[in-house]
């Protein structure tokens, strides 16, 4: 997708990819793994040893890896987009009240998500319009110096997960 649109994006243009806070929940990968996720041609990605079934523990791990990969690939694509005078960034939203989130809140991990909302620094979920505001910054002239970056926008869930009340015990 980024490859294909990176071939036609207009000078002065910009892209934004919505990933997820989930990519930030995964521990650090090695420099080699980061490079492999970022740079391996899309059609060859699934052949990577780190993405084989015995390396991926469950669907959540797969999801985290896919979101991490997303941000890394956007960073790599930013180099190409820059040659056309364009920019591309990732937003990694946390719990945003969309129909999708409503599914999650009533799904098998619903209780965990409600706990995240309760214990995160913001103390609430986000709204799509708040993501819209950051998207507008990244795509507009005020964001002209921002490219290849990933914006975690999760009300502090990741902060609490790493250093606060949401830390796994």
């Amino acid at each position, binding site marked *: 997708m980024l490859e294909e649109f990176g071939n036609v994006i207009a000078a002065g243009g910009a892209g934004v990819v919505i990933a997820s806070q989930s990519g930030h929940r995964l521990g650090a990968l090695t420099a080699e793994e980061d490079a492999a996720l970022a740079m391996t041609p*899309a059609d060859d990605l699934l052949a990577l040893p780190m993405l084989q079934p015995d390396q991926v523990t469950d669907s959540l791990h797969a999801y985290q890896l896919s979101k991490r990969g997303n941000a890394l690939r956007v960073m790599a694509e930013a180099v190409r987009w820059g040659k056309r005078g364009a920019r591309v960034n990732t937003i990694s939203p946390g719990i945003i009240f969309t129909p999708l989130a409503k599914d999650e809140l009533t799904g098998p991990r619903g209780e965990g998500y409600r706990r995240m909302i309760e214990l995160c620094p913001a103390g609430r979920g986000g709204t799509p319009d708040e993501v819209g505001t950051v998207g507008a910054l990244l795509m507009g002239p005020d964001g002209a110096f921002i490219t290849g970056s990933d914006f975690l926008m999760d009300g502090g869930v990741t902060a609490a997960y790493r250093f606060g009340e949401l830390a796994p015990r």
Partner: protein
Amino acid sequence: MSNVIVVIGPGSIGQAIARRVSAGKHVLLADLRQENADAAAEILSNAGFEVSTATVDVSSRESVHALVQTATALGDVTGLIHAAGVSPARHRRQQSCLSICTAPRWCSRSSAMSSPQVVPAS
């Protein structure tokens, strides 16, 4: 030729961004399911935006390429909003299409694909 903003997965987040950056531009709304693109088109059209729709399967390079052709035929592509995604809850029963996650190893494409959104590919 107009300036074109392409929105892939025009759910509530994609629409929220599009509304902020698309005044005076053409908005191309693309989704795996035509009815989702149509639903977004109605909302944005009623909000004063010039829109058109397309379907795209982000796990297929040909499909993405066709979308690029549709977009460039409309004008200069000045913006891409890639907001297609599924939650891990839906991930279990649906095909995931992020480029690192295209394989049926993790989840198989099922007929229960009722999500309004699809997973990002890069």
